[in-house]
């Protein structure tokens, strides 16, 4: 299969280039399916060890064994990009996967979010993560597995709490409040200054210490690593490593619909136009395509979740048809899922796709509620806001070292799961080693303050 696949890949790449796809070279590798399972669980081929991955692994493993899920490909952006194909796939499937991967490679080179991440995190995330994993293994040797695990418990629990609008390498806050210009000399001020006992305050400038943080800080990983007085250096390092990987994962997460759609659009288009492929291969590949890019599972006629492959694919097809490839490429470069779905998923298209909103109540009843396009947009995007995590920021760092976290329950619409929040505070307090306080609301909307014991 390998020689044939290599030949197909060469020809597909030539075709892709002629179609305007622009990507860094991609290293393909055929790997056993067990390896694919691991990559799906860890997000990266070699990543820091943590028991929570073990739980995901066993779930994935069981599902895989029962044939519920089938992983076709994993690809890592970079220069070169790296793609892993399952060696158990047929030649037809893998030919399709190669075309799909080329779409991803094009996307990750050109999309601005991906570009910014790669400029900061680097162009070889696979190697970087492996290096980090090795460093963490060294830490475990030096400080003991349990201590390292405790740090990872806390850092990975806060994995999603980063701020990608700030640079990856980020300095401390300014130490002093910036000087504000003296108020302009208007007639009132000059007369006021002449009052008896009134000295000219404006001229004496005190340097005032700036509060930490000067504004609510969303990047919890960064703040803990930077301002945690009690952290040891290697513990800071672990927090920053986790943060670095989160910076890499963030665009993957927030462009999933676009990215999978783009790759699906291109595998379909490249295979359609690949007249060098035998007809039988094409038919087999198209069958695989329709297995992946379909809204419903099996014989079902309704689905309670959106298949991002199908939604993205449909949107891109429509955009290329109506607005042309150049416009599509511009959208691909500039958008993320939020702008993409809001701008491109029109009322007509939603109707055509038969999208609906439903409500599932706690007694198990599921009922269709409406087709409102704005509500549809927001419901599709709701799980994607803020990297999929509740909005929690550090609002205060008290002089005794107390860390005050505040949950923005108004924007999130409801309070935190209090039991879980307490456990996260437990993780955090071992590392922060000073009191940690969290403000949120309970189910009734009453103000709740959780405090690490």
């Amino acid at each position, binding site marked *: 299969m*390998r020689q044939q696949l*290599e030949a197909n890949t*060469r020809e597909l*790449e030539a075709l892709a280039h002629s179609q305007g796809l622009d990507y860094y070279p991609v*290293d*393909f590798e*055929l*790997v*056993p399916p067990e*390896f694919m*399972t691991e990559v799906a669980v*860890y997000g990266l*081929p*070699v990543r820091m*060890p943590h*028991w929570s*991955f*073990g*739980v*995901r*692994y*066993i779930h994935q493993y069981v599902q895989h064994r029962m044939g519920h899920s089938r992983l076709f490909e994993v690809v890592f952006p970079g220069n070169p990009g790296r793609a892993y194909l399952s*060696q158990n796939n047929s030649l037809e499937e893998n030919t399709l996967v190669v075309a799909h991967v080329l779409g991803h490679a094009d996307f990750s080179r050109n999309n601005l979010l991906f570009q910014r991440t790669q400029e900061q995190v680097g162009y070889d995330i696979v190697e970087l993560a492996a290096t980090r994993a090795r460093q963490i293994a060294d830490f475990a040797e030096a400080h003991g597995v349990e201590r390292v695990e405790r740090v990872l418990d806390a850092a*990975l*629990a806060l994995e999603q*709490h980063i701020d990608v609008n700030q640079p990856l390498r980020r300095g401390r806050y300014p130490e002093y409040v910036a000087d504000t210009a003296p108020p302009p000399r208007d007639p009132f001020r000059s007369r006021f200054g002449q009052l008896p006992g009134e000295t000219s305050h404006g001229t004496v400038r005190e340097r005032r210490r700036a509060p930490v943080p000067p504004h609510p800080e969303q990047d919890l990983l960064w703040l803990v690593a930077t301002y945690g007085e009690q952290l040891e250096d290697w513990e800071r390092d672990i927090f920053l490593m986790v943060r670095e990987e989160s910076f890499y994962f963030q665009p993957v997460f927030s462009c999933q619909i676009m990215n999978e759609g783009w790759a699906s659009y291109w595998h379909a288009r490249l295979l359609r136009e690949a007249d060098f492929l035998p007809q039988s291969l094409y038919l087999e590949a198209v069958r695989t395509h329709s297995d992946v890019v379909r*809204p419903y599972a099996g014989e079902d*006629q*309704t*689905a*309670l*979740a*959106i298949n991002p492959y199908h939604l993205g694919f449909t949107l891109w097809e429509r955009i290329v048809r109506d607005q042309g490839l150049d416009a599509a490429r511009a959208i691909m470069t500039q958008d993320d899922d939020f702008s993409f779905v809001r701008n491109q998923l029109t009322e007509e298209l939603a109707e055509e796709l*038969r999208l609906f909103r*439903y*409500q*599932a*109540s*706690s*007694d*198990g*009843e599921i*009922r*269709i*509620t*409406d*087709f409102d396009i704005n509500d*549809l947009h927001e*419901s599709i995007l709701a799980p994607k806001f803020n990297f999929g*995590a509740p909005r929690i920021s550090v609002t205060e760092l008290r002089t005794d070292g107390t860390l005050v976290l505040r*949950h923005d329950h108004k924007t*999130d619409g*409801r*309070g*935190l*799961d*209090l039991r*879980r929040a307490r456990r*996260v505070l437990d*993780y955090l307090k071992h590392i922060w080693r000073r009191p940690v306080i969290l403000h949120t609301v309970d189910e009734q909307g009453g103000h709740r303050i959780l405090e690490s014991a």
Partner: protein
Amino acid sequence: MPIQSASSPQSGDRRWYDLFSRGARDWLRHNEKIREAVRSSLPDLVSESGILTGSGGRTVQVPVRFLEHYRFRLGTPETQTGVGQGRGSPGDVLRPADTSGEGGRKGSAGDGGGGVELVIELKVDDIVDWLWEELALPNLKPKTGAVQEDDYVRTGWDRRGPRSRLDRRRSLKEAIKRRNVSGTGPMFTDDDLRYRQLVKKPRPSNDAVLLLAMDVSSSVTEDERKLAKTFFFWVLQGLRRQYQHIETAFIAHTTHAWEFTEEEFFQVSGHGGTVASRAFVKAQQLVQERYSPARYNIYLFYASDGENFSEDRRASLRALRELGQLASFMGYVETGLSIRDPLQTESGEIFRRLTQEGLPAAGYPLRAEADVWEAIRAFFKQQSET
């Protein structure tokens, strides 16, 4: 474009990812943590009567939940909204409410695996180890005063002996010493050889017998019996580390007493009244016939709901007093789920008197599973202090 492959000829060796499974490594670590978690809830584990059904008796199976790695999450709202795809119009019910009454369905499979259970198998020995650490108990020593037994013990070396006891290291040392002094001579001489010497030495007996007696009259319920069984189980496990050989005998009684096998013992149930002295006399008989106090350390445990004919008190006391002279310990396990004042029963009174008379006896009230832990702690504390 070359595509690398695990089976490609240029890389005949196995690839790096074949060397070990990272997922399996982290899974094992997860299981290790589960063990630790189970350990930290030891009282629950010990009181759980269901665990005793483990295979072979040397391990127990404990159902546990997957550990969840916690993250900040929003609370679960009353109703969740989502987007679906397919035919339908507003108001259509896609799935009817769950009428079975049992709350809502579990959410879609998350990464936490909240509801999934797995069963881990723990070695009974490990649990007893934990128990010991948890109770901060010293290792129990065999009772002194138990009768001596002859044993061969190694003490020193001799120049003569059978070939099998030749100590080569020691002999070589002797040869080196000799050659160093004389400066010359053969490699080995007969005088260099050293043999390990064995001496007959008395040793405290390391055998014990655990006599478990139980009231199986109709007033004792199934739950009460389970409590007793759990307690007996851990007592036996604890004594196992004290004695090399431990035997058990099971006596059930109503107005008569019979000896049973272990399986039968916990299943039999009888009718009629309660005459506890019959069981104690039966125990005495067994001691006379099979478990000579000269060889065995004797432990007697009696489980009952506390009821006994008051005319039987004298006979019971007599039998227990005689036994108390021979036994290392006599325990009374009161399993009355409905008893208001623990140990204020007829049987409780009997054992209290024995304690007052200075005999090694004590009573343990078991009214709920949670009491098992306390009772075990109390019993082994006493054992390690005396």
